[in-house]
């Protein structure tokens, strides 16, 4: 079993573990944390999958999702704090 397949399966299991915490986590903060980790694991999974399938274009998807994941986490934190995504600081 090549190391690429080992990495792929390990990251897939990690994504499952993050989803378990997202489903179970008693507070909303646990859920935000686990969705953020799920996004990071998705980036790794797409990158490794690109190598497994011999398609280097998947790295563009991985970079794009890394950006989206960060912006999404910050947006939901601002929404929790202010209640309105369009509001400025006050």
């Amino acid at each position: 079993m090549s190391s690429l397949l080992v990495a792929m399966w390990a990251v897939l299991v990690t994504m499952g573990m993050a989803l378990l915490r997202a489903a179970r986590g008693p507070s909303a903060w646990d859920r935000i944390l686990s969705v953020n980790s799920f996004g990071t694991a998705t980036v790794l999974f797409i990158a490794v999958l690109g190598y497994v399938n011999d398609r280097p274009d998947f790295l563009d998807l991985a970079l794009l999702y890394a950006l989206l994941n960060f912006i999404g986490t910050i947006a939901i934190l601002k929404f929790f704090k202010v209640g309105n995504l369009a509001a400025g600081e006050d």
Partner: protein
Amino acid sequence: MEVLREALSGLLLVSGAAFCLIGGLGLIRLPEFYARMHGAGILDTLGAALVLVGLMLQPAEWTVVVKLMVILFFLQITSPTAAHALIHAAYTAGHEPQLADDVHTSDGEGSDDR
């Protein structure tokens, strides 16, 4: 030389996979939110860095290696920022840490249940 590069890449990928699993296990098993940040932090920094550097050593064109470097750089900048933002938001919103019975936070508050 090729054997060395392939062996190093395999070693980095497998250890990155191991740290990803350790981080995920920390997410599931640790008792409260502030402790689970440790698991997520391991996953975001060591897991991601080892897997991406291991992928860089795989045989590919130089454009692919540059893209991997950009992904790694971006993850290294944004993961600690998001972690700090999340913990700060949770603390200022009043989510209290679960402390031992004789320990209190500087505000004089602390959670009494374990």
